[in-house]
């Protein structure tokens, strides 16, 4: 795996490999020595051209736990604000010694553009591009869901998929790269996805997507889902009037105390509430729902570090022979034992 650009083109095998690797990575977080030597001497650049706190520090923690060196580069106060092109920026970063570039960009498709441009030879990890994809967020959500499923079945999560799980994704589907990445990945893993949003926040062409669509959150909750994923209302992307007022949004689309009670009475005894963070308490999620034991937000954050460790490990190991991994002359490889 040279790059991680999207979950839409991620095969089931690769998805399971990332999740299984992440399971072992998370075991490291429980140890006294929270460090692995796997990426010693490699350099990971966090190139964040859009505001981010948790994703950036999560990638930073992941790279550091694998002993990589980390360089953080943001848009503000750097050469980018002086008008430097992306090409010049990434070539400069590679000249400094970057082995992988973790990029968040406001433009949809920016990561794929960078990976396919031939400007650089580094691995590219998409940390969110416009309204297109945010693959590591979907992977950490899948890891959280898979563990939830495994706990319910009393089995080990390793090697399992999400067959039969019902997941409702609620809110601003239109602008949400998290929703898109989750839709593709969860579907690949065998889960059934329902999107619930007001018509103004549902993308054009949604009927072509492999999911159910509903315009009533109450209906979606009454169907007894295994997980309800609340999306953040992204006020920074709300330049038009997508809904009349915040209060009205909360009334129709917020996970309120009433809906929390409905979820509990819908027969889904152990349904979980997910949120990619940061939560807008009182807008898309009530304080009771945010603090509920069902809420996996903090577990998601912890799993985020494990998933990002797995992704960085998988894109950065074996890169010297990328393309012909099994056809290296034996003289070039050390025998193992």
């Amino acid at each position: 795996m040279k790059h991680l650009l999207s979950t839409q083109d991620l095969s089931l095998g690769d998805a399971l490999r990332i999740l299984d690797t992440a399971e072992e990575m998370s075991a490291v977080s429980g140890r006294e020595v929270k460090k692995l030597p796997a990426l010693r001497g490699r350099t990971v650049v966090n190139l964040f051209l859009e505001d981010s706190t948790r994703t950036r520090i999560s990638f930073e923690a992941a790279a550091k736990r694998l002993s990589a060196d980390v360089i953080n580069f943001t848009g503000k106060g750097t050469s980018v604000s002086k008008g430097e092109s992306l090409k010049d920026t990434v070539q400069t970063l590679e000249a400094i010694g970057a082995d992988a570039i973790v990029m968040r960009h406001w433009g949809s498709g920016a990561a794929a553009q960078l990976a396919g441009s031939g400007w650089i030879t580094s691995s590219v990890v998409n940390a969110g591009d416009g309204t297109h994809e945010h693959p590591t967020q979907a992977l950490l959500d899948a890891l959280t869901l898979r563990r939830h499923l495994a706990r319910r079945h009393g089995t080990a999560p390793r090697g399992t998929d999400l067959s039969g799980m019902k997941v409702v994704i609620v809110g601003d589907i239109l602008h949400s790269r998290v929703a898109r990445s989750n839709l593709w990945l969860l579907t690949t893993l065998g889960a059934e996805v329902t999107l619930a949003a007001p018509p103004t926040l549902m993308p054009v062409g949604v009927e072509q997507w492999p999911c159910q669509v509903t315009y009533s959150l109450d209906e979606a909750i009454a169907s007894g889902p295994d997980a309800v994923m609340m999306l953040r209302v992204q006020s920074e992307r709300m330049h038009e009037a997508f809904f009349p007022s915040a209060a009205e949004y909360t009334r129709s689309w917020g996970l309120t105390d009433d809906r929390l009670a409905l979820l509990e009475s819908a027969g889904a005894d152990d349904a979980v509430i997910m949120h990619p963070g940061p939560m807008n308490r009182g807008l898309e999620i009530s304080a009771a729902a945010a603090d509920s034991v069902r809420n996996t937000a903090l577990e998601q954050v912890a799993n985020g570090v494990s998933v990002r460790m797995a992704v960085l490990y998988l894109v950065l190991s074996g890169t010297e022979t990328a393309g012909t991994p099994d056809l290296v002359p034996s003289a070039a490889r050390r025998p193992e034992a």
Partner: protein
Amino acid sequence: MQAVPRDARTVLSAADIDRALTRIAHEILEANRGPDGIVVLGIPRRGVPLAERIAAKLERIEPGFDAAAATGQLDVTLYRDDLRRSTSRTPAPTRLPASGIDGAVVVLVDDVLYSGRTIRAALDALNDVGRPAAVRLAVLVDRGHRELPIRADFVGKNLPTSTAERVQVRLLEIDGPAGTGEVTEDAVAIMDIADPATAVGKDAR
């Protein structure tokens, strides 16, 4: 699973393997003067069933030894020195006894000792999960060609080989019907690598 090539010579039969493990178990107890403090850790994949078998034998010989509470596995994938070259492998779980390994006499178990690089990685991995009083090494086959100053304390069979040969260990737990293959009994076989360029891989060890 790869079919066993025609030129394969079986060097250890199932009974030979069992006898070798029994002897190793006795040697471990003799060297340790009893079962106190022993923790047996297998290195995935084939070191794990071997570790379990040795632990079961230790329990049979010394009923005071609790095999279930003193057996585990230690994954070394993320400590390897060839991560840049080899294709990325999915790490296997590390499972340690609940009591940990601090102050224990850890017996590492692997199937084939070759370059010694896996054991180097295992020593580093062990260092990150605790501080054992001592570390010993038990292997089913020592085929020579060491590249590091590492030696085994307990050896099932010393097997002189050339680097153009491959040592294949087949264990029921992994290669049998319950695992991933169709092997019907344990065996250690040795064979020529037909085309070294394509045969490099896990089985080449």
